[in-house]
């Protein structure tokens, strides 16, 4: 239908980001229009983030993880002046003021944290936490169980039927370290610790291997106080089909009518639904 406006998701790429195709596929499956754009296109102002409803920072190894995962990318986002002289971070501030949404996965989450968009308890885009080397001392590349906080403030996880979800992680620096007790208290008070690593009984778990990195608060994902910004270390865009899950044959055997949709897709359905209803 011509008058039905599709939600538009922008997926950025470049500088070593490498999960943009999956991220775009996730949005398309969730009913949105997805555009993959090199960041330079935005910095050169050949396109603008304001033409889109959801801005996405996918995973990857931006700038080869030099200095620290996503450190260089985060600094670029913070200090880069676009062609007109306007700073990119101010563009992001305006984007959020317009009530739009930002998501970062893995390297994208690390960027959001290091540029101060998450958890942003102080509201000033100041870095309050970091994501650093896993306690295991190695790259963790496997599936983990995640718990979704009930009554969480982000529309990305608004599906009331969503309690827990299996997702793959693939990172060397996913351990959340919180700057001080004040920030920790604010995260808890504002319910920003929206996704935690869990054990087989669906209890938040600080123990390896349930918790793949030793994150404080068992944190796998954070949102900001508005709920508009959401970031997580696991990859929901890598679980779009039931058949992405290593245990699918058993799941299907136990439940022959199981949906062929991957549980990770629900995150994208949630936000596309929310952005769509906001347009009307």
């Amino acid at each position: 239908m011509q008058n039905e406006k599709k939600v538009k998701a922008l997926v950025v790429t470049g500088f070593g980001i490498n999960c943009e195709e999956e991220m775009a596929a996730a949005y398309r499956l969730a009913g949105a229009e997805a555009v993959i754009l090199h960041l330079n296109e935005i910095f050169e102002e050949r396109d603008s983030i304001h033409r889109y409803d959801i801005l996405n920072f996918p995973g990857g190894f931006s700038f080869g993880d030099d200095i620290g995962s996503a450190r260089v990318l985060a600094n670029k986002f913070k200090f880069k002046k676009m062609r007109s002289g306007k700073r990119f971070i101010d563009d992001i501030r305006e984007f959020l003021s317009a009530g739009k949404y930002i998501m970062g996965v893995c390297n994208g989450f690390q960027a959001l944290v290091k540029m101060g968009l998450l958890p942003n308890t102080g509201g000033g885009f100041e870095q309050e936490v970091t994501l650093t080397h896993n306690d295991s001392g190695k790259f963790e590349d496997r599936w983990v169980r995640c718990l979704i906080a009930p009554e969480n403030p982000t529309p990305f996880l608004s599906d009331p039927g969503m309690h827990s979800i299996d997702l793959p992680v693939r990172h060397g620096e996913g351990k959340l370290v919180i700057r001080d007790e004040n920030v920790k208290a604010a995260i808890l008070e504002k319910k920003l610790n929206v996704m935690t690593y869990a054990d087989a009984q669906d209890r938040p778990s600080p123990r390896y291997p349930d918790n793949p990195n030793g994150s404080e608060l068992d944190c796998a994902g954070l949102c900001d106080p508005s709920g508009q910004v959401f970031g997580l270390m696991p990859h929901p865009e890598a679980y779009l089909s039931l058949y992405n899950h290593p245990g699918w044959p058993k799941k299907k055997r136990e439940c022959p009518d199981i949906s062929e949709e991957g549980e990770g897709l629900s995150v994208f359905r949630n936000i596309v639904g929310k952005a769509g209803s906001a347009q009307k």
Partner: protein
Amino acid sequence: MNDNFCVPDSLYDPVRNPDGKQKLAKLVRMNEALFDMATFFNIPMTSGKDSMKNDFKKGDIRISVPPTILYSMVAKIDDVRRTVTSDFKKPGDIIYMTGNTYNELGASECYALFGITGANVPRVRKEDAMRVYRKMMAAGERSLIESAHDISDGGLAVALTECAFGGNTGCDINIPVTEIGPLAELFSESHSRFVITVRPENADTAEKIFGNDCRKLGEVTSEDRIRIRIGDETLIDRDISLLHAAWRDALRT
């Protein structure tokens, strides 16, 4: 199909490499085997990588790697739903072995535990292998196979245990006494065999397809236990979780 050789320096030298001719002969035999199998199964090797000088030398000491071939195969399956994983799926499923076990404990993991090599190393009976593979395909096309795992290092007992790891299940196995003896039944590394499971309601159909190329071994249980009986004697009765810890942590200590 892709092959990787990793072999020691095979250039004969009376002083520096006195067994060079034998090493070269091993490489030739390896290549002959590759030729035989590739032409018989009609699967071309699309690429390869040779590493031909795998020797450590210091002073008078020379250590050569055992001649090794790493052989990788990738095949396309049109529908992901038709793929089969190795873990047991559900208690009550019937466990079969497809293919045949011979008294081929030579160079097995079992013998290695006792520090011996033995003589009767496994050999590939390629016509038999092809027949079993075709039957596996036929059963797979009719979605009769719930799990399938190749029997390789460690033999049947190890393969059964690995299937149980994947599924948080156990198994009860009953094998009759045979002329090759229990050690060979459980640990022989004869080629071209699989452990498969089939739903009870599909057992007849599967048995018809495989005929003499399958043997019923027992069934999947919900216990954390692997029990293997041969004749009247229980030979293995262990907690799966214990075996899993040993298997998983082998490289950790």
